């Protein structure tokens, strides 16, 4: 096994994910990003909610907190507030983050604490056997939308930008090298960094929507993604059906823990 996997994983493999699940590709990208970042593992915390992707924390050789459904961000907020010097990575799924954790998500964007949120968007509740989520595209089939969903879906990145996150990016598992770079940039951004990762679930999503082969799902992403740079030069009609990847938004954050530290300093007489 590659050295970086030995360095950043705990060795309790194989993981629980199904054959062809895209989650492992995200986990691999995270390890490569960690290899670039060269952080002290003792000062890194991984926080996740509930669902397939949230099981990632069990495999990462850092401090890990596998929490309750939808609640990873509040736990992470507590960790970061308590120890602002720690590097906090939050792992969530589309159901975990956008449905049950939706309120926590927008408030984490608003607070803009310096942490990295990686959302594994495979368009489905995998752990419970394939029900549609708020990120399932309109019309797609699932075990609770056997005739196709009539629920409109969120654009998670627009939601994050609207709620105030200072770094918002979208990646996908086909562009694995770019995904690694996005994780590095998200970590290095000094505010709340959201990466929506277009991932794949061949078993619970692909099979219901006529793309059962893992490789076909990966190739779908290859063919239907366009970079932000290219998308900016395309007409709205041309971009409409495409998945735009890259850094979609970035601004200078008013980072929460730094502002809090300033308040403490002022109250303690250190700064007038």
């Amino acid at each position, binding site marked *: *096994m*590659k050295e970086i*996997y030995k360095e950043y*994983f705990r060795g309790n*493999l*194989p*993981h629980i*994910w*199904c*054959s*062809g*699940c*895209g*989650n*492992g*590709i995200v*986990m*691999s*990208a995270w390890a*490569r990003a960690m290899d670039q970042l060269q952080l002290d593992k003792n000062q890194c915390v991984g926080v996740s909610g509930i669902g397939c992707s949230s099981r990632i924390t069990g495999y990462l050789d850092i401090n890990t907190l596998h929490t309750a459904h939808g609640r990873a961000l509040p736990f992470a907020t507590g960790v970061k507030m308590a120890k602002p010097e720690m590097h906090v990575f939050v792992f969530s799924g589309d159901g975990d983050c956008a449905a049950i954790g939706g309120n926590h998500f927008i408030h984490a964007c608003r607070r803009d604490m310096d942490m990295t949120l990686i959302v594994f968007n495979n368009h489905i509740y995998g752990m419970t056997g394939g029900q549609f989520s708020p990120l399932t595209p309109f019309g797609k089939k699932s075990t609770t939308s056997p005739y196709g969903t009539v629920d409109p879906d969120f654009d998670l990145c627009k939601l994050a930008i609207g709620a105030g996150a200072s770094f918002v990016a979208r990646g996908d*598992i*086909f562009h*694995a*090298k770019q995904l*690694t770079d996005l994780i590095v940039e998200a970590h290095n951004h000094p505010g709340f960094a959201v990466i929506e990762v277009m991932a794949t679930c*061949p078993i619970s999503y692909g099979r219901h929507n006529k793309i059962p*082969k*893992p*490789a*076909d799902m*990966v*190739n779908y992403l290859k063919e239907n993604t366009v970079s932000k740079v290219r998308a900016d030069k395309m007409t709205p009609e041309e971009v409409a059906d495409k998945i735009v990847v890259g850094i979609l938004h970035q601004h200078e954050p008013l980072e929460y823990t730094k502002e809090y530290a300033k308040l403490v300093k002022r109250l303690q007489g250190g700064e007038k």
Partner: protein
Amino acid sequence: MAKKLYNVTVQEKLCKACGICIALCPTKVFGATAEGKANVNNADACTGCLTCEMHCPDFCVEVEARENE
């Protein structure tokens, strides 16, 4: 200049036979076992692009530059 060569290995124990490396490899380095797991049947064709390594969801494919023979 001689073509740069690579060693490609698949850790069979971890492979879940998803077929992603087989399908994505641009130079057809991989074949499949009877169980559908990846096996390396043409390592000499490898160009070292690492597509297989980065897309293996089970961390079982590894590409390393071959030492000069």
